[in-house]
């Protein structure tokens, strides 16, 4: 492990120096395995936050209070420590330039992590594909990569829509409340443009967003979902 950076009070980005890495595709994840002194093992999946073009592999990890792996990664890990990692993994929740678009990215909470990898990959390329990000977070302080996403929106053609679901500043001019059909109808590419859609977040978030997209007339076959959660951990 090379460096650690606080993103929000609950999330940190871990940058890794890897001896033997064949490269990855935007949207893929890795499995991290921890082994205790008594041999007990725990393994969890973490989305890759960096683009294939980035020099270091980055993971953004959200600390779960009852987690077995994330508290170690966010609280105990120090630069120079070794990690047992398997990957890159996954081929379904992947976006690459030839897939085209328009590209619609819909993220809830730390579900924005693989979408950020796709955005960085998009920004490093010819940017021929129109792209929009709709990101739902509980409060402004829980927005991961806020500065970077805001800057990307200013400097590139990215259209960035942020909605806050629990708390917002008094002068908040952005969206409020959960992502629903009304918000999607307002800010998503219209179904007639046949956007390629990637939805990532907790299971309930993904179910709601994907169903609203289909109800709005988006093609189910062009919507790719990735659910994550503390389920079963």
């Amino acid at each position, binding site marked *: 492990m090379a460096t650690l950076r606080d993103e929000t009070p609950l999330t940190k980005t871990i940058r890794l120096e890897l001896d033997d890495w064949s490269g990855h595709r935007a949207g893929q*994840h890795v499995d991290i395995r921890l082994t205790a002194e008594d041999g007990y093992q725990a*393994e969890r999946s973490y989305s890759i936050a960096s683009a294939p073009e980035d020099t270091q592999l980055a993971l953004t990890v959200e600390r779960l209070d009852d987690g077995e792996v994330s508290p170690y990664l966010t609280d105990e890990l120090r630069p120079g420590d070794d990690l047992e990692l398997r990957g890159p*993994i*996954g081929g*379904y929740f992947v976006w690459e330039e030839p897939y085209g678009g328009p590209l619609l990215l819909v993220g809830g909470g730390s579900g924005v992590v693989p979408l950020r990898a796709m955005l960085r990959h998009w920004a490093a390329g010819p940017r021929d594909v129109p792209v929009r990000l709709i990101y739902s977070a509980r409060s402004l302080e829980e927005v991961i990569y806020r500065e970077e996403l805001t800057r990307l929106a200013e400097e590139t053609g990215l259209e960035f829509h942020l909605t806050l679901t629990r708390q917002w500043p008094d002068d908040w001019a952005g969206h409020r409340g959960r992502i629903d059909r009304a918000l999607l109808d307002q800010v998503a590419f219209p179904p007639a443009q046949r956007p390629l859609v990637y939805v990532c977040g907790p299971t309930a978030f993904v179910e709601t967003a994907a169903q609203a997209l289909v109800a709005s007339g988006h093609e189910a076959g062009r919507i790719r979902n990735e659910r994550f959660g503390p389920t*079963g951990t």
Partner: protein
Amino acid sequence: MEPLDGNAIAGSLLEYFGDEMTLVRGTCRHCGAIARIAELRVYGRAPGSVVRCRTCGNVVMVLVTIRDEPRVDSRHLELLDPPGQLTA
């Protein structure tokens, strides 16, 4: 318990089949619905996961890891593509 999806078992399947599996399509032997492995419903995670058809809800695959060795019972899922398919 809220299910995850087939993306969550991609690592175990990679180890077992020796290649990427999430884009591989399978037919549910209970109801005949076709879905990509990434689209199946996954309850629990390694070392033990139960995978259900997203259409009829019946069990199509069971994964367990025994002494570091992944084992997969996929007799209720007819795989339609070879492992390693990289694009949809």
